[in-house]
């Protein structure tokens, strides 16, 4: 039954099961189809993409968020669910335009030049994908010009910059400066984060937002998307 498939997608998002090999939270789930297999099945059944996203993926993530707030879920649980939703969105992406569904937006993320740390950036990427954004991850130790070129070429709504070192955080300011010089600053909202970064620092370099952790980063992107911030 079509509704059953969507409900299974929702349940498997809550369980954080990407594929049939994942164990999930409850006994005996390994071997049952995970989110990616269920998405394939939903598409083959001709289910509306809008319903798959709204009633399956988003509804599942909402439930996960509530469990996290209640202390029932931990961050690894959130990430597993977000990863499953991100993978589902990747499968659905080719169908989105033809279905007339607008994506929530595209964000380019990168760790700045001379900084090899990427755990925080990776977590933010997973959470943003889980929230329904298209994420292009440039990686770590990315040259300022390469970041600016990616913004020019891909025209994302958001740019997320990460740095873990006090010696590399200044590169974030350089990226913003370069975006301005190249006339690209107005087309992209820049969010910064990383251990040494602060709200005050973000303001001082002209960033549009600052996320102290992955969850705040998603909240800031959502707020910027709805125009609540600068």
């Amino acid at each position, binding site marked *: 039954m079509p509704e059953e498939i969507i409900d299974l997608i929702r349940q498997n998002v809550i369980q954080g099961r990407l594929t049939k090999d994942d*164990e999930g*939270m409850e006994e005996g789930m390994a071997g049952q189809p995970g989110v990616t297999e269920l998405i394939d099945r939903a598409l083959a059944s001709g289910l509306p993409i809008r319903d798959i996203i709204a009633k399956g993926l988003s509804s599942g993530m909402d439930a996960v968020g509530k469990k996290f707030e209640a202390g029932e879920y931990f*961050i*690894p*649980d959130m*990430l*597993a669910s977000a990863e499953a939703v991100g993978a589902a969105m990747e499968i659905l992406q080719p169908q989105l335009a033809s279905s007339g569904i607008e994506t929530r937006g595209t964000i380019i993320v990168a760790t700045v030049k001379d900084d090899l740390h*990427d755990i925080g950036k*990776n*977590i933010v990427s997973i959470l943003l994908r889980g929230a329904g954004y298209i994420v292009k991850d440039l990686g770590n130790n990315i040259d300022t010009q390469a970041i600016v070129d990616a913004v020019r070429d891909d025209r994302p709504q958001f740019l997320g910059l990460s740095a873990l070192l006090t010696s590399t955080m200044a590169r974030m300011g350089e990226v913003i400066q370069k975006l301005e010089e190249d006339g690209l600053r107005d087309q992209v909202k820049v969010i910064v984060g990383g251990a040494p970064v602060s709200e005050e620092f973000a303001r001082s370099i002209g960033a549009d937002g600052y996320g102290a952790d992955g969850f705040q980063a998603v909240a800031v992107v959502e707020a910027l998307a709805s125009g609540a911030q600068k």
Partner: protein
Amino acid sequence: MPRNGILVSRPYERLHKEQVELIHRASMQILTDPGLLSFNREAVDILASHGAVVKSVSGAHESWHVTMSEELVLKALKTAPKTVTLGARNPDNALVMKGDEPTVYLITGSETNIWLDVDFPTYVNEADPTRKRRVPEFKPRRGTVDDLCRAAHVCEHLEMVDGYIRTVNIQDRDITEQNKDVNKFFASLNNNTKHFMSGLTSIKQLDNVVRMAELIAGGKQELEANPIISFITCLVKSPLQFVDDTTATFIELCRRGLPVAVSSSPQAGTSAPIKEAGIMAQINAEVLAGITLGQLVRPGTPLLYGSVPVRARMDTLNDSYGAVETSQYNIDCAQMARFYGIPNYSTAGVCDTKIPGQQSSVERLFSDIVVAMAGPQYLHCAFGLLDCNSVFCLLQAVLDDAHFKMIKFFLRQPRIDQAEIDAVLKQIREVVATPQKMYIGHIRPVLRSGEISGVYPFEGSGETDDVFELAYQRMNELLAKPVQHIDEKTTARIFEEVPGILPRLNVHERRD
């Protein structure tokens, strides 16, 4: 099934084998020269009948000089049980202690005169009256039987407490020397289903206390099989003296085969040498003398090697449980008890400070960790105790339970074997091959298995320290939880057959 203690498979030991032998030899020499002074006649007679040399000493109090040979001590040690079982009202709470196995049980105690209440008045910032803060204030008062009930109640629900030693001395107006024992035993046993240990105020009350225990256990034989109560006696006053009344109590307890902790508490600097070698040789001699006497009274009677050594404070000459050396002595004693194969009653967690706070946390946590690592079987770890052994604070007991969870987790066995290595090698290879190279996905299978330690339960949400407030909430939650009281029929029989118990302690007949 007994409770699971903490098995310390590789206990921390400070003494080399040769040093253990040296202490043993020194203790044997002490028992022959200078020997002991006994103020109890019966002890002298028992020891003399087994070959100890006794000689009357002239003085204001009747006393005897006693020397005992190594042969006599070793013969007595042979009959001392190497495994001691302490039962409980709930048999699942029984404690099984093997002298050669460093499995640690965490026990409350000792008896304090002062009960510390806590309140949280609100203070207003003078410069900015809009800024207010609730600050904990501690108020000492004399302990009562109701306090003892509350402490037993909370300790029933504290997960890390394996056994209960009475925590507070009951000093109500209607408590006298004649009814103190029956009331402290009943208040504790009626509010706690774990093993209960106590000292005895009056030997005259022993029959009543034992009858109470028999009624709860289901009979005389049932009490022997499941000794829900045990006793602690400080028969030795350091240096090297058998005290008259507690020695009499000890002999009677041994005669009945009731479990007893033979406790000695010398203070390095005053009642024992300040040097580690000195206090160790002396306390070992004192405890062995007590064990020898007990085994001569009744071979096979269950005894614990009770060690409460402490160093003197140099500014007051009071006990300094917070002194680092105090922990060293206790660790040494755990090793000596293991050398003889007798379960060890040890001490940790007592602090010098009078109220909960940073000093209290530092002192108690330090000794709790290091002494637990030594693997004493019956660790009297001072849940809630402050100001050495003078003050009990229920809030502190709740805090102690939290840090013992950390210690228990810390002492668990490492899980490293070939299967585990194979599994993690597979995991490392898999993760390194992914673009993100993160192991987070592998956390989930162990997230709820108990393999990952939890966060500190009293962590505040902001930048203020909310530990006391959160622990206070927890304490009240525990007090609100029900306790399995002794059933109505048994309670009625206890009140019929055991005189002196305060009527207000009968929860089945209590009227507000």
